[in-house]
């Protein structure tokens, strides 16, 4: 059979594909351990050191290479991501809850929301900057950039919640209503604990997308830079391995976030399972 040799060929291809995906990171990771301050951002590694990691944290003696201007940006980006996460998730849960009953114009509303994640950042960024200019509002990271971050992440939260509600058994809620529990209390005590794993995923999406958001922020935030904008600023000048070290650190931060999510997810799924068992019993 011909397929007997096609499968290993595709297997090898897939391995090469993964190499293509990961190769640049591996190289970036290796070069971040270049000796400093005279080692450049290329091979060969003159000597292995953690100089550039110390440089990122400001632990090295002053040299001709300026420290990365990231600290204020980091604080802003974390605050912005947190604000975006809260608002997007709330909007996402509310909208998805609304979609559980058919209402007039639901098709249009669906596409309106999904449009937010499809329209490129340059276009909305430019549009909102124009609106802000003509209304006479200052563009800042916590106002104009923030609303655009929500425009971008709210659709993700909405789609996640829609998928969760699709698999949701409404009979538990109906049971609560028939016992005379108010809809709001039902949501708090019955619905919310059951959809909580979805809420966590929506929060994770919103936080990470906002934390890393670049093109919308570029136009919509004013003089105070967020972390991605500060990083982008360093691209135009000569690059040094300190930015590679920073890349490794920020990747580790993302994985830490993912790990926290995984732990919370396991705990909440376990709790949901325990609740289900109690109901059955």
């Amino acid at each position, binding site marked *: 059979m011909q397929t007997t040799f096609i*499968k290993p060929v595709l297997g090898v291809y897939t391995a090469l594909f993964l190499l293509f995906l990961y190769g640049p990171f591996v190289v970036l990771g290796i070069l971040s351990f270049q000796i400093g301050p005279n080692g450049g951002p290329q091979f060969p590694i003159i000597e292995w050191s953690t100089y550039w990691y110390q440089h990122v944290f400001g632990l090295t003696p002053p040299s001709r290479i300026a420290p990365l201007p990231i600290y204020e940006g980091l604080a802003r980006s974390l605050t912005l991501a947190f604000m975006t996460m809260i608002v997007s998730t709330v909007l996402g849960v509310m*909208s998805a809850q609304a979609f559980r009953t058919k209402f007039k114009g639901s098709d249009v509303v669906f596409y309106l929301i999904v449009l937010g994640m499809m329209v490129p950042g340059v276009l909305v960024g430019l549009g909102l900057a124009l609106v802000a200019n003509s209304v006479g509002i200052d563009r800042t990271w916590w106002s104009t950039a923030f609303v655009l971050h929500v425009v971008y992440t709210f659709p993700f939260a909405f789609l996640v919640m829609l998928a969760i509600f699709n698999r949701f058994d409404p009979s538990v809620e109906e049971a609560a209503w028939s016992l005379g529990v108010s809809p709001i209390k039902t949501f708090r005590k019955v619905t919310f604990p059951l959809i909580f794993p979805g809420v966590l995923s929506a929060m994770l999406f919103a936080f990470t997308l906002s934390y890393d958001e670049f093109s919308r922020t570029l136009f919509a935030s004013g003089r105070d830079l967020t972390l991605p904008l500060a990083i982008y600023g360093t691209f135009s000048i000569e690059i040094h391995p300190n930015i590679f070290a920073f*890349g490794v650190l920020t990747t580790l931060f993302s994985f830490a976030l993912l790990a926290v999510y995984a732990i919370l997810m396991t705990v909440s799924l376990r709790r949901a399972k325990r609740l289900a068992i109690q109901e059955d019993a």
Partner: protein
Amino acid sequence: MTIASTTPDTTDMTPSNLGPLRSKASYWLIAPGVIWMTLFLVVPLGMMVYVSFWSQTTFKIEPILTTKSWETFFSSDTYLNALWTTIRIWLLVLLSTFVVGYPTALFVGLFVKNKTLATTLLVLCVIPFWTSFLIRVLAWRPMLGKEGAINIILQALHITREPIEALLFTELSVIIGMTQIYCVFMVGPIAFMLGRIDPNVIEAARDLGASFWRIFRTIILPLSMPGVIVGGIFVSVMVLGEFATAAALSGRKVNMLGNIIVTQVGSLKWAFAAVVGVILTILMGVVVAGFLRIVDLKREL
């Protein structure tokens, strides 16, 4: 992330008479989201169209309607070149993400029978997305440079004697970088569609003596088309709106429409930036509509 599996048509719409408040409550629940998206998405896009007809003086724009900015765009070689560059890069990246991604999708979606392994492979494809977009772009610099990893490896293997300088700060580096960044959006949807092919169909074709190539052409490829279309839409929308990769990997030599917008905003030419924005929007609309004409997604998914 498939859009169709979550379209309103497929949601459970049974109105419950036990929840009398629900149908009216729907409007209250949806209102904040709709208002937010209208104010901060629809209005800005409308404003962009409007401002593209404003008069531009050196440092400011005035709401006096004119088509001057439009005339400038269509009479300038620089801007028409940017339009052409955008279309060329989009087509090349679309093609390369398809060519590079399809075999992987084929392996993951069709050949790997073990569900855990298939999921693991897909997760491995997604993990790079947990790092910053800009770091992903930057990571190509030490790969492609004159003293970069690829040149070192090529020379060590005696494939080339001199380092290839054309790898970095050219259109090629932009295309390589974008292919790596966006090909996962191609792999995912295609692998999803391939995974849904009934193995019995392929088995039957094989029993009737069809060669693999023939099975691929007449069964696998047509059935995976919706995945290709969804992937194509994702990649197209993202590549057309790009500017950061083009700037960082071409040394600002390759200018896409996105780059023009950034420069024009930088020099306060708002009306002009708006014209480029509207042209980009139209281009995207045409591309997405074109894709949707090839395959009726709502029916296929």
